[in-house]
């Protein structure tokens, strides 16, 4: 069992992260007005992925975890990215 030191992130940092998340949420709403066509879903997924990464990194303390745990989480995201890409390849060629 890992007995690594506990990490307490400062209020200031948490507040900055919250601010970034709110801005990204606002962006994901505003971006609809630009009529990106086929790229609308891609943009929504990109923004959601950035928000998700920030939450995992700071709020869920992944930044302070061991390399193996970070690799596992990264691997999972890579897996889902590949699955989504493969699915959309079908749509692109259909």
């Amino acid at each position: 069992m890992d007995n690594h030191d506990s990490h307490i992130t400062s209020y200031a940092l948490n507040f900055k992260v919250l601010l970034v998340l709110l801005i990204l949420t606002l962006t994901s709403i505003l971006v609809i007005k630009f009529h990106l066509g086929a790229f609308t879903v891609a943009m929504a997924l990109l923004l959601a992925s950035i928000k998700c990464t920030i939450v995992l990194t700071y709020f869920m303390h992944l930044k302070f975890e061991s390399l193996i745990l970070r690799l596992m989480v990264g691997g999972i995201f890579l897996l889902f990215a590949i699955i989504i890409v493969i699915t959309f390849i079908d749509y692109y060629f259909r």
Partner: protein
Amino acid sequence: MNNQTSTAPLNYLNHQTGLWSWLSSSDHKRIGLLYFYCIVTFFLSAAVLGLLMKIEKVAPGQTIMTAQTYNAMFTLHGIIMIFIVVIPGLAAVFGNLMLPIMIGAKDVAFPKLNLFSFYLFFGGACLALYSQFANGHAPDTGWTFYVPYSAEASSNVVLALTAAFTLGFASILTGLNFIVTIHTMRAPGMTWFRMPLFPWSLYATAWIQLLATPVVGITLLMVIAERTLHVGFFDPKLGGDPVLYQHLFWIYSHPAVYVMILPAMGVVTEIFPTFSQKPVFGYVPIALSSLAIALVGYFVWGHHMFTSGMSYESRWFFSLLTFLVAIPSAIKVFNWLSTMYGGSVDLQPPLLYAISFIFLFTIGGFTGLTLGAVATDIQVHNTDFVVAHFHYIIFGGMGFGFFAAIHYWFPKIYGRLYHIRWANIGWGILFTGFNLLYFPMFIMGIQGMPRRYYDYDPKFQLGQTISTIGAVILFIGLITMISNLIYHAKKGALAPANPWHGVTLEWQIPSPPPHENFDEIPVITKGPYVFDNPYTK
């Protein structure tokens, strides 16, 4: 509550008594047995449905049921067998019973979560049954719930979808529990490559359970939303895309095949060295091939959709990837055979089932390549060929793996020995019935017999009749096998700690195991398959 009988030493079966002590126990072994009894009960119920369907098809035309009843029956048979029996089967039963012991732990990482998983499973199973009888409208969509039919059918589809969702949640939590257990609770000295191969297979399985199941969970919720809120995800009438449903469904449901089969591969990997009294051949390749199967298995889902209107490019892409799965599967098969080669082979019932597993799984695997190639798949798609293929894989693979596991670990679980000759007879009947039942379906499938039809052209009658006779023989084999086990669980001769001369940790503790498995956590100093006998020198 502690009641030690005068004859039996204190163990997990008798250290507490009463129904409540079982229903509230967080002991991994008791939870494993709860799963076992539930799953066997559901398995027998669904097997009876299968038998009735085969009796219906003994002659052309209506025999014992209407077409609508037949549709409901194959749906119920599929839902019970897939979601309640084969997906959770080996991992939930033998993973719970054996994983902590085999890695030298006293329990899983989250014992209470483990019990919660069981109740989620039980609740989901009850809901699935209820959906068949509520309002007299049993779902008739098949276990795949394909849209647009499942979005429009008037039967109890929402209840069945909710049941599948709940069962999926139980599976996710079990997977999470096993991953954390294997990462954090291995005995001192048990490095990754000193871990037995059944835990390795459970580890690969758990990752699939954890990562793939949420996809189908969300997909099923989307169908519910479509039916109740009329949100257009999949139904073309609402602007949705039915092929998207198939993508999302098979992104989970193909890896789910490996949730079924990987633990079975793990079981036979334990059995071959024990009954050959020889170290497993190719330990590292077998361990890594489990992970490889799990990984590649994520990317082959499209082979279920070759005729669904998927793009040409996707079809050849998925066909290529499908063929890649054969490589790690073949690595395992060659290593199992090499393990037996030159060993002191003892043909006890667990080994008979394990060898049958190789035989049946290989037939299922080769016919899977027929289905993985686009050209031949289009010829046999939606025919009895497909039904025969997946029964060879799932029943011949997972089912016979399950039977191998119970015959292998029975003395450890109950502290009793079953009757070897009756077990052998049961195996013989089962194996004969299985092949008579399913092999004719390959031939009929190639000849054009569609799946899921309750009626057929008279030219198929010979094949259908042979298949029905096989179903009856198979059922007799099941009854023979189960009767032998049930009777001897109570009345069998007392089993020694290590009746099969196994070398993994579960054979080093008493039968049945004590409540907390080990008085002292063992320190591991060598690999898991070191046999101290002349054959290893």
